[in-house]
């Protein structure tokens, strides 16, 4: 069966139409020496040989199973129960394609519905969509929703500087070409009160992160109130795993909750694919991007699942759509749904508690060291900032000798935080790992 629909006659006709004789004439502009260059490849090798060679390459990589990982900054090394992969690898789930046909897609649709329900529960929101690419694009979609809510009449968006720097960059990229003012994140020394003071009648959205990029936990109730007092929308960027322990953003009266879902059963895997979480209040459901699965009954009264509302962005609203993003992370959302169902409410809380307590143990021990001090004031979750005696690049290079992957160099994104390291601790870091980190840091600073 041929997958090329054009017959030779078709092609001839097209060539005639553009006034060339042969297909090759189309490549005239390419210099002869580039057309069929001598590639100088080594002679072929057997499958056995190539497998061995590739294996050797892959073993040159460091991975989190063989070294102690204290790097987080938005992507975390958590335990993933084996059942997650087991379900994911069922080939019935192997399409990321939108299940438009409910009669053949009940399994996929139900899985997405379960995902939505659990995310709504976790965030305290009324409704969750069936995911975005990642946390950063989910935040960008929150901005788009807010702008549309006010029909572009409010042109100011306030971002806390303690939102993941890359998330803020993605928002700015998405908003290129829109007449919009994005403010609030000029320096990292901005608290909730300052953000509240910035909010005015021109403001469409105020967004904060919880726990923030530095790991700190803050009560945003007062900020939520202040934002609503000027009629703007309030968005909270979350680490969903932390919500196993923390009160949900609905308690701050959040209108939109977005976040990176990688912490829920998704491996680190070179930065993706990850999972963008997006949840909101009922009243904004019509303006929410992405897709949404709903529960219904068929003509015989049996329970069933269908895509509700959201393919309408392309099919029905078309040029009036507020966002045409329908692409999602169906398979990764499924992974998170399996993870959440395995953990259950108490399991998720236990994981979050383990992360919290281990991180606090690490922070206390590091703070005791002569040359290092804990930078965070007040509560934090599983990540904290340490003021270090020398550049983080140097420290991390030395830590590798101890089989430790050190923390994130905050100086990369925050001018004022040179020599500050963001350290993440998860349930996978043993006490031995942490003690090793502490002693290694101590030795490193005396070298």
């Amino acid at each position, binding site marked *: 069966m041929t997958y090329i629909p054009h017959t030779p006659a078709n092609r001839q006709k097209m060539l005639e139409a553009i006034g060339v004789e042969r297909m090759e004439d189309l490549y005239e502009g390419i210099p002869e020496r580039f057309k069929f260059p001598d590639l100088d490849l080594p002679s072929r090798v057997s499958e056995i040989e190539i497998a061995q060679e590739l294996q050797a390459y892959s073993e040159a990589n460091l991975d989190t199973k063989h070294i102690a990982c204290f790097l987080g900054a938005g992507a975390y090394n958590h335990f993933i129960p084996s059942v997650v992969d087991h379900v994911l690898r069922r080939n019935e789930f192997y399409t990321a394609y939108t299940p438009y046909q409910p009669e053949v897609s009940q399994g996929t649709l139900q899985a997405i519905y379960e995902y939505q329900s659990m995310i709504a529960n976790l965030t305290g929101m009324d409704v969750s969509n069936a995911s975005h690419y990642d946390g950063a694009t989910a935040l960008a979609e929150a901005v788009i929703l807010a702008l549309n809510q006010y*029909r572009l009449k409010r042109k100011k968006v306030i971002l806390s500087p303690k939102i993941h720097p890359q998330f803020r960059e993605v928002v700015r990229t998405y908003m290129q070409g829109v007449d919009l003012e994005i403010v609030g994140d000029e320096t990292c020394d901005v608290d909730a009160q300052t953000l509240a003071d910035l909010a005015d009648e021109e403001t469409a959205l105020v967004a904060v992160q919880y726990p923030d990029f530095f790991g700190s936990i803050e009560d945003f109730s007062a900020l939520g109130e202040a934002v609503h007092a000027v009629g703007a929308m309030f968005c909270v960027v979350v680490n969903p795993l932390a919500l196993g322990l923390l009160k949900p953003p609905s308690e701050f009266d959040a209108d939109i909750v977005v976040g990176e879902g990688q912490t829920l059963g998704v491996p680190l895997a070179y930065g993706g694919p990850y999972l963008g979480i997006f949840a909101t209040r009922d009243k904004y459901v*019509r303006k929410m991007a992405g897709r949404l699965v709903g529960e219904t009954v068929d003509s015989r009264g049996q329970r069933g699942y269908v895509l509700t509302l959201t393919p*309408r962005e392309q099919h*029905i*609203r*078309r040029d*009036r759509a507020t966002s045409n993003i329908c692409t999602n992370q169906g398979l990764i959302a499924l992974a998170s749904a399996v993870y959440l169902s395995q953990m259950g409410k108490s399991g998720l809380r236990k994981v979050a508690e383990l992360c919290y307590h281990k991180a606090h143990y690490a922070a206390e021990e590091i703070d005791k060291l002569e040359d290092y001090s804990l930078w965070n004031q007040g509560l934090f979750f599983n990540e904290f900032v340490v003021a270090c005696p020398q550049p983080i690049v140097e420290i991390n290079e030395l830590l590798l000798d101890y089989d430790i992957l050190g923390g994130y160099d905050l100086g990369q994104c925050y001018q004022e935080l040179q020599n500050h390291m963001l350290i993440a601790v998860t349930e996978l870091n043993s006490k031995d790992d942490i003690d090793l980190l502490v002693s290694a840091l101590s030795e490193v600073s005396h070298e």
Partner: protein
Amino acid sequence: MEFPEELKYTENDEWLRVEGDVGTAGISDFAQDQLSDVVYVEVTAAIGDTVAKGEVFGLVESVKAAADVYMPATGVITEINEALVDTPELVNSDPYGGAWMVKFELTDASELDSLLNVEAYKQSVEERSS
């Protein structure tokens, strides 16, 4: 299909009821029939807004399509029909009654002359249906 005689119409299938200085607008029976089941109505103009004739003041979305709704005459919005938020199906069942979308203060009575009367509108519908 109903075409109440006392109303004015537009080529875009909006209807206008004039009572003194107050205009009431919605979409016609023909429009709702073309759209089929309406699932969502949104008035995008806010109370107090001045909306010029021909400008968009709302949106009607059905299972088949979404359509902008245009002001039949210039006016200042005084009332929005909140009932349509929860019962958009009124647009199908009662397009000239329960499904009114906005009330507004007419600012330019001369504009009314350019609207279609029932006969002209019927003819426009017939031309488009055939």
